[in-house]
């Protein structure tokens, strides 16, 4: 008889970088419970928002995450602007995309080089990688810093931007200010390529019999561009809905072992369809929308338009980083400051929905506003919550197919399975306390 108990813990930090643990039971060679425990107050921010003014979520929700504040700002802004029928276009829209480029670059590069790559290299940290590859990591540091620089120039600060408001920005940067990013982006492009080519040399584990291959991959899709802020919500299994109706299809449900709600599509815990969001979903649904330059690199590196191995998500993040650098260069090259930094967003009662692509997947916001402009209800569904089922499914399948591994290796691999999703539970680093009871 074989019996295993695995306890894996994540230090609690904020709503998304929450505290977590993993509990797995194996009896008679069969995996029993697989529980990704997250200890975090997932609805505190929604409670904070009730009674606040409609202009405030842009700043309040940005504080949910220090890695992806732009995602929170964008989803909040789009949701509330939609109530008033305001849809910023032109230069404001481009600036929003540029700001998002900065966030994707800094978030993806941090995850790839410092959190995820050590798993593949067999070291403990990015510092150890730097010891082995100093020239590469020096450029990677600059690449990450370029992402933060974009956020600083457009958003006013490299972390937690303060220049975003409903309708646009408090102040639009000048062409000269954006021009200061040109040389950084040129260097960053080479670094993004070098990082991508390096991660393409990794050996990628697999999960035999992976059930998640049958789950739905959900992302935004826009008609003509790789998605950040806009588009319909689609899946590889035919889902194609307006953001405004997506909330009706998500069913959040509570499980005893996690304070973060899980989510399914089109039904409850028992009947709903399991899905995942993030780079693999975005790439699967939008690979045809990246420029030919990025598609060519993907082909050279053997990245297919449909990638379902979660361990290969690091490759897609690398492609998205390369794309974000090129998109930033495109936006800056064509930039003409808007005549107004922000459109007026009149106080309007109603319900608004916003969904944008955070680096780790779709981030959905819903706000109910009364005639005084006061928020009466708020719902925020972050990608990490949506991906919990997929993570647990992967863990179950991985443990089931790797019971021959020793405790240390199995524990390490389980951490890596979680990190494949770049979850904002301690931002997915080497966080797990691991023990196994084999029932001996």
């Amino acid at each position, binding site marked *: 008889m074989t019996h295993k108990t695995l306890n894996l813990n994540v*230090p609690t*930090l904020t709503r998304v*970088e929450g505290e977590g643990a993993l509990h797995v039971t194996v009896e008679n060679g069969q995996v029993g419970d697989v529980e990704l425990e997250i200890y975090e107050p997932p609805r505190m921010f929604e409670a904070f928002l009730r009674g606040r003014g409609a202009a405030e979520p842009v700043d309040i929700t940005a504080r949910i995450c*220090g*890695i992806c504040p732009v995602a929170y700002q964008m989803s909040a802004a789009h949701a509330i602007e939609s109530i008033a029928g305001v849809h910023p276009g032109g230069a404001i829209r481009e600036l929003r995309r540029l700001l998002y480029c900065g966030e994707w670059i*800094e978030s993806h590069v*941090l995850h790839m080089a*410092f*959190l995820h790559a050590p798993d593949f290299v067999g070291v*403990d*940290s*990015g*510092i150890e990688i*730097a*010891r082995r590859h*100093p020239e590469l*990591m*020096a450029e990677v*540091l*600059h690449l*990450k*810093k370029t992402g*933060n620089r974009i956020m*600083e120039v457009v958003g006013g*600060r*490299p*972390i937690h931007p303060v220049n975003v408001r409903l309708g646009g920005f408090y102040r639009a940067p000048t062409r000269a200010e954006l021009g200061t990013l040109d040389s950084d982006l040129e260097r960053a492009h080479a670094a993004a390529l070098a990082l991508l080519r390096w991660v393409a040399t990794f050996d990628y584990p697999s999960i035999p019999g992976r059930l998640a291959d049958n789950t739905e991959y959900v992302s935004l899709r826009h008609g003509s561009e790789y998605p950040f802020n806009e588009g319909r919500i689609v899946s590889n299994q035919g889902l194609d809905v307006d953001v405004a109706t997506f909330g009706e299809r998500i069913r959040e449900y509570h499980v005893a072992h996690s304070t973060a709600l899980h989510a399914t599509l089109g039904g409850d815990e028992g009947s709903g369809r399991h899905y995942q969001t993030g780079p693999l979903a975005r790439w699967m649904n939008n690979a045809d929308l990246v420029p030919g330059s990025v598609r060519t690199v993907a082909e050279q590196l053997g990245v297919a338009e449909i990638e379902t191995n979660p361990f290969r998500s690091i490759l897609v993040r690398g492609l998205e980083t390369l794309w974000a650098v090129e998109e930033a260069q495109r936006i800056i090259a064509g930039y003409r400051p808007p005549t107004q930094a922000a459109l007026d967003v009149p106080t309007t009662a109603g319900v608004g929905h916003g969904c944008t692509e955070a680096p780790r997947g779709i981030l959905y916001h819903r706000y109910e506003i009364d005639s005084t402009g006061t928020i009466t209800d708020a719902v925020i569904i972050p990608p990490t919550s949506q991906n919990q089922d997929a993570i647990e499914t992967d863990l179950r399948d991985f443990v089931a197919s790797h019971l021959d591994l020793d405790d240390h290796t199995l524990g390490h691999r389980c951490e890596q399975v979680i990190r494949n999703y770049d979850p904002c539970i*301690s*931002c*997915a*680093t*080497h*966080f797990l306390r691991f023990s196994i009871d084999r029932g001996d």
Partner: protein
Amino acid sequence: MNAPDRLLVIGVGNRDRGDDGVGPVVCDLVEQLSLPYVDTIVFEGSVLDLPLRWSTTNRVVIVDAAEPTGEPGRITTTDGLAERLTTPSTVSTHTIDVGAAIEMARVLDRLPVELSIIGIEGAEFGFGAPLSSAVERSAHRVAADIGRRFPDSGY
């Protein structure tokens, strides 16, 4: 690009969080001295960017608020080159600290010629709070000391 031997004062902290803002305040005070060979940076970004902020020919002083231990305003100076700061054995986005940034600079051969880390022990870190009096006095002492190290300052 900074010329050789220039001193770079990097103030780390959040001005809106009481004593956490002491690093930026020291930068303000040093700026007021108009020292000819001293540059200041108020640093709000990721600490991993720190190695990219200095030149290997710089002398660098990093000023940050230190954790309360009951002695508000206590100044602790550490030689960042001679001493290895405690760094987490692993790097998460929430455990990347100055020690990890210095270690990264070390392995990338990007250490400055001098690196002092000055911690000023804080007491109050509330939203919008001013510096506590003991911390403010220490900020002036640190700025004055920087002025003395560069006698052209006239501090």
